[in-house]
């Protein structure tokens, strides 16, 4: 019985910890909502991606600050002898980041569109990356992962926000779909 309780409690703690780490500390939110209201302060939520830091940056004294929320995910790939480190940055700017009509991604990036059910259209620029296995695991194949940028298109309801994403291919759309604001937490 005790073992069962420990297992249940353990799984609850394990299940809760990514969610706790993925949300912004209320103490920190109090600081940042002075400059970006809760309804404009964007966050994501995906198991494994943990919020590591949030930063307000002023280039010039009287300017409105740029606000960055950064997540990190470490994925140990035991069969390859390496750990992949993925990062995700939500960049909030005082001005609109909406792309002009006819915008094209940088060379080597695959362009597509994404429509967030709540916030609206984004242009998505994605590129595949590879990581070699460690020399001690030379028989293992290459690891494939994706880096991407999501920029708001006209009509988007968070025009001041862009995202830089990094993860496995199957992480990108769930990450974008998980986009929400602090006021929704």
């Amino acid at each position: 019985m005790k073992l069962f309780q420990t297992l249940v409690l353990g799984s609850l703690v394990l299940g809760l910890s990514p969610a706790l780490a993925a949300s912004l500390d209320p103490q920190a939110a109090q600081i940042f909502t002075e400059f970006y209201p809760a309804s404009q302060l964007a966050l994501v939520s995906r198991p494994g991606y943990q919020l590591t830091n949030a930063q307000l940056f002023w280039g010039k004294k009287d300017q409105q600050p740029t606000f960055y929320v950064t997540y990190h995910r470490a994925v140990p790939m035991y069969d390859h002898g390496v750990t992949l480190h993925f990062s995700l940055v939500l960049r909030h700017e005082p001005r609109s980041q909406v792309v002009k009509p006819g915008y094209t991604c940088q060379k080597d990036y695959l362009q597509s569109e994404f429509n967030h059910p709540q916030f609206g259209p984004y242009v998505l620029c994605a590129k595949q990356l590879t990581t070699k296995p460690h020399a001690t695991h030379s028989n293992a194949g290459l690891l494939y992962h994706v880096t991407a940028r999501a920029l708001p298109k006209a009509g988007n309801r968070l025009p001041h926000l862009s995202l830089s994403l990094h993860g496995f291919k199957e992480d990108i759309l769930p990450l974008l779909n998980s986009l929400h604001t602090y006021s929704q937490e």
Partner: protein
Amino acid sequence: MRNLFSTFCLCLIVISQLPLQAAENFLSPVQERVLAPYFKPEQIIVSNLADYASAGLAFTWDQPKRQLLLTLNFGKSVLLPSQGIKTVYHFEIKHSSLDQGVREPFRCRPNEQRQELQSPQLGRFIACNRLNTQGSPGQSLGLLSAQIYPILGNRASHIQISYIGSQADLVQVVQSLRSYR
């Protein structure tokens, strides 16, 4: 002639006062209010070194340690006449709520040179210096990189400074450090 001399003196006084005025108004009222629970005005360390202008500031929430970091950046544009190249000398003062002071005996890394520096207002610092590594653009300019740590007992043991520039300016930067208020 007398008028010219008076004007010159007045200009010198104004110029010598400018950086201090800039330091006094360094933060906006909102920034001061947000920082107040984390850093008292006397704990915010700035530089009033002439030629160096504010090059940005950041409030960073460190989630794992649940602490707020305050980073102040200063820079000056420099023309290196021997190379005819323009570069930037830069330093960053990072304030933490945790103690950053190092204890003696303190050793820098094997590839670094230790230098002891003194701030009249704050106390002793140790700089771990190195010339920029091979292949970096700074190497040909002979720029120095330094990480500057307060020695335990320093009145600003909650800061650390990253510096890139000349050896002469490094000494002046540390001497110029003072409390914001």
